[in-house]
């Protein structure tokens, strides 16, 4: 070859080297130029990929072989060339050592006459590929291969190496630029204000695949509660392809990565003991990195199988770094998104709580507006059922009746059927009054719904086998029957009566006592009753119970006051009457004396024989009139003295025994020892039995109160004389320690009492009664020991006048 030819060749190749076309085209141009100018049958360029040489450009061989014809590095001439990086030359069919693979067919044996194989080496000494020229016939170029020619080919080879290198660098640059762009997109998405976690995860998975060229990406996140690594996002495959969406820590490659916080680059997973088949298809190579911060691992990013179309099967270190970078971005973004979600949750929670408290506050305000029980119950039930309140469909309030041990329905609020419900709700929702007003306003007089009527008819014995309502009272806890169907069996009665299968009950507890039950249901809109609802209901029920208790106390106070006032009025009245009576009596007594003398002398006059007819008549009239006056006086005195006394012959001993019977409990309570010495053959006395009994009761009660426990009460009866007639005496002696003299003097005075209770009147009343019977009552002190009451009764009080 002439030096012109050589220069020409070099020039052409240099020209190709500088052209902007892509690598494949340029290599093709090179082989064409070489084949033409050296006049060989075929010129081919092979590039090394991994451990094989792949045909990339040829002039002379079948073009279909490009990218498909491969030789292992180290085998055959070409392989050896790549391996040892020296020229290989075959002339005239002389084969060197080792196997020669035919560059055309790829089989053993060489068909060419001459073959030149030149290594393409880069500046670092790596073999990038091989140029091969071969001719079928004798070729002068190959035959006369000299050092010059060798040098020439070295230069050509280094040119081609340059081409390849720059092409590679250019490709790398393009790739890096692409990655940067993609990362930029991801960063922007990650830092945008609107954060939707699932979309974010999908974006991350997609980006991974795009920047690495992998077949698919699986993003898993670790659930802190269950400890499972679960698939959260995928790209490049389907959900159905994943057979194991949840892995335990340590299971499989992803599990290992999550547990150890270190990435895995597995080129052939079948060779890795940690591998667990989690996919329907078989992956060949997997790259898995942890999504983590310095402190903890949040999840894993796995890439499967580099895209076979790009020609590279396994992941590289660069891919690992890229992915790790993306993973740390992902970590921040996911953390951020989670915080945001949590914030929203808390805010919503807070708002709900505020709303609940607000409702309770308003209902409470409404409850405090009244002390009347029925009004309060209405308010409570309205608060529970009204839309702006707790919002249940229907409610019934039951109160415990302790005497009968029953739970009685006192009041219900709620519509009877869905139509009614809708009507009421649509009406109420158009009114925009504040909650308190709506609850407390007096309803226009309206017809009770059937439900409300039925509620008042419900009564349930408080016994453990009587169903949920009774159990609410006994066990002092709430029941949510919708949530736990095991209660259904016990609640059949209620279910039938009210027509529901889901309802809730809460106890109304005031001062640790269950005073009633609040029943609620959502019979029309069927909204389930949640735990939160139950909590709110219980809080409300506690308030309601206190309010009800208050009204009860208030009612008691009112009743007591009324009672006291009545008694007071009566007392005042009777004292007034007594005073009046006394005044009348005093007056009557004053009048009596003059009447006696008047009448007496008139009678004397009537006895005078000298009196004429007319005079006699006049005198008789005077006598009659005086008698009349005396009768009137007598009546006045009788009236003021006696009040509905019915005298009948009675046995005082019997009355005493009856009295002790009546007081047996009080006596037993204080363990008082009662000794009776009752005379047999006691005179019968004409008395008003009830009143005398009252006297005995009052005296004995007085003694019981004065005595400590295990005191002694002696009762003695005997016959006696009172004035000019027979009578009986009853003595009561106690061991109450005696009474100081200043009190003793006033002991029968109704307005003098040392006790705070009303029994100070007892003795005063006793005194009055005995007076009415024309008897005598007195008290003797036995200082240090006790007192003795002595009652004397005439046999016939009427005769005693």
């Amino acid at each position: 070859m002439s030096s012109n030819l050589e220069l020409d060749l070099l020039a052409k190749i240099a020209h190709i080297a500088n052209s902007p076309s892509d690598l494949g085209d340029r290599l093709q141009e090179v082989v064409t130029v070489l084949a033409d100018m050296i006049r060989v049958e075929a010129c081919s360029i092979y590039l090394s990929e991994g451990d094989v040489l792949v045909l990339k450009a040829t002039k002379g061989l079948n073009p279909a072989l490009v990218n498909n014809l491969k030789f292992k590095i180290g085998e055959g001439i070409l392989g050896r060339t790549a391996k040892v990086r020296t020229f290989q030359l075959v002339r005239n069919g002389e084969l060197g050592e080792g196997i020669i693979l035919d560059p055309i067919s790829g089989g053993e044996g060489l068909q060419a006459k001459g073959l030149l194989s030149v290594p393409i080496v880069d500046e670092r000494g790596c073999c990038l590929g091989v140029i091969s020229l071969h001719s079928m016939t004798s070729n002068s170029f190959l035959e006369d291969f000299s050092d010059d020619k060798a040098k020439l080919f070295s230069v050509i080879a280094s040119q081609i190496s340059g081409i390849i290198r720059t092409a590679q660098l250019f490709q790398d640059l393009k790739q890096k630029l692409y990655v940067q762009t993609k990362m930029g997109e991801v960063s922007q998405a990650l830092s945008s204000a609107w954060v939707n976690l699932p979309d974010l995860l999908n974006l991350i998975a997609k980006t991974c695949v795009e920047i690495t060229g992998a077949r698919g990406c699986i993003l898993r996140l670790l659930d802190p509660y269950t400890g499972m690594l679960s698939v959260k996002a995928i790209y490049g495959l389907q959900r159905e392809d994943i057979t194991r969406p949840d892995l335990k820590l340590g299971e499989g490659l992803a599990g290992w990565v999550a547990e150890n916080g270190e990435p895995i680059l597995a080129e052939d997973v079948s060779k890795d003991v940690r591998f667990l088949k989690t996919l329907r298809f078989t992956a060949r190579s997997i790259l898995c990195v942890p999504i983590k911060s310095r402190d903890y691992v949040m999840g894993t990013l796995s890439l499967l199988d580099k895209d076979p179309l790009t020609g590279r099967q396994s992941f590289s270190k660069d891919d690992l770094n890229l992915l790790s970078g993306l993973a740390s971005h992902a970590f921040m973004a996911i953390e951020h998104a989670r915080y945001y979600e949590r914030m929203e949750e808390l805010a919503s929670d807070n708002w709900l709580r505020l709303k609940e408290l607000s409702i309770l506050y308003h209902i409470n305000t409404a409850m405090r507006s009244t002390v009347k029980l029925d009004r309060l119950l209405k308010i409570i039930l309205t608060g529970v059922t009204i839309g702006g309140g707790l919002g249940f469909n229907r409610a019934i309030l039951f109160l415990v009746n302790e005497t009968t041990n029953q739970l009685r329905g006192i009041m219900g609020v709620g519509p009877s059927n869905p139509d009614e419900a809708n009507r009421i709700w649509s009406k109420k929702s158009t009114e925009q009054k504040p909650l308190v007003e709506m609850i407390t306003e007096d309803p226009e007089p309206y017809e009770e719904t059937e439900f409300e009527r039925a509620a008042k008819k419900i009564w349930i014995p408080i016994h453990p086998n009587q169903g949920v309502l009774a159990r609410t009272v006994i066990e002092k806890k709430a029941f949510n029957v919708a949530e736990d169907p095991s209660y259904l069996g016990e609640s059949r009665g209620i279910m039938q009566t009210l027509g529901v299968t889901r309802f809730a009950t809460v106890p109304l507890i005031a001062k640790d006592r269950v005073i009633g039950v609040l029943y609620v249901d959502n019979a029309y809109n069927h909204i389930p009753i949640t735990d939160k609802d139950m909590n709110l209901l219980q809080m409300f029920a506690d308030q309601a119970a206190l309010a009800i208790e208050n009204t009860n106390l208030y009612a008691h106070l009112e009743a007591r006051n009324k009672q006291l006032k009545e008694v007071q009025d009566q007392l005042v009245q009777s004292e007034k009457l007594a005073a009046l009576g006394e005044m009348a009596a005093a007056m009557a007594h004053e009048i009596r004396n003059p009447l006696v003398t008047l009448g007496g002398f008139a009678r004397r006059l009537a006895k005078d024989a000298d009196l004429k007819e007319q005079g006699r008549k006049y005198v008789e009239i005077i006598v009659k009139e005086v008698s009349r006056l005396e009768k009137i006086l007598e009546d006045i005195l009788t009236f003021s003295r006696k009040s509905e006394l019915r005298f009948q012959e009675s046995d005082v001993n019997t009355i005493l025994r009856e009295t002790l019977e009546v007081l047996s409990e009080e006596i037993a309570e204080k363990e008082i020892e009662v000794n009776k010495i009752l005379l047999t053959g006691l005179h019968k006395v004409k008395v008003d039995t009830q009143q005398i009994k009252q006297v005995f009761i009052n005296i004995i009660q007085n003694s019981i109160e004065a005595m400590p426990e295990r005191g002694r009460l002696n009762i003695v009866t005997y016959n006696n004389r009172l004035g000019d007639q027979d009578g009986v005496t009853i003595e009561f002696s106690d061991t109450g320690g005696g009474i100081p003299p200043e009190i003793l003097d006033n002991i029968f005075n109704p307005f003098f009492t040392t006790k705070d209770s009303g029994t100070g009147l007892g003795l005063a009343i006793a005194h009055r009664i005995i007076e009415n019977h024309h008897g005598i009552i007195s008290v003797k002190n036995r200082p240090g020991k006790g007192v003795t009451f002595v009652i004397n009764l005439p046999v016939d009080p009427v005769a005693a006048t």
Partner: protein
Amino acid sequence: MKTILVVDDEKHMRLLYEEEFKEDGYEVITASNGREALESVKMRHLDLVILDLRMPEMDGVEFLRTVRETHRDLPIIISTAYGDYMQRDFSVWLSNGYVVKSSDLNALKQKVKELLKEA
């Protein structure tokens, strides 16, 4: 002849009783209060006393208590305008009887007869 002492603070009452009992054949002495009555008792023998309760200076009850210390068996009838026992006192038991004043003196007279018969 039996002697009756009439004790009453009212003059007309004393007069009426005096006239009535004199007519029945009794000797009648009067006193206007308890103290006077005691003096009479001391001074002479009496067969019976008709005693009013409400009197000034010394009332009937006090007279009764005092006189009983010395004259246990002296018959004494209480004759009073007060229809019921206003005395919160055992002392009325010290009398031999009780009669409410009336313009018709028969009941009193009957009582007097009874007591004097026994005596």
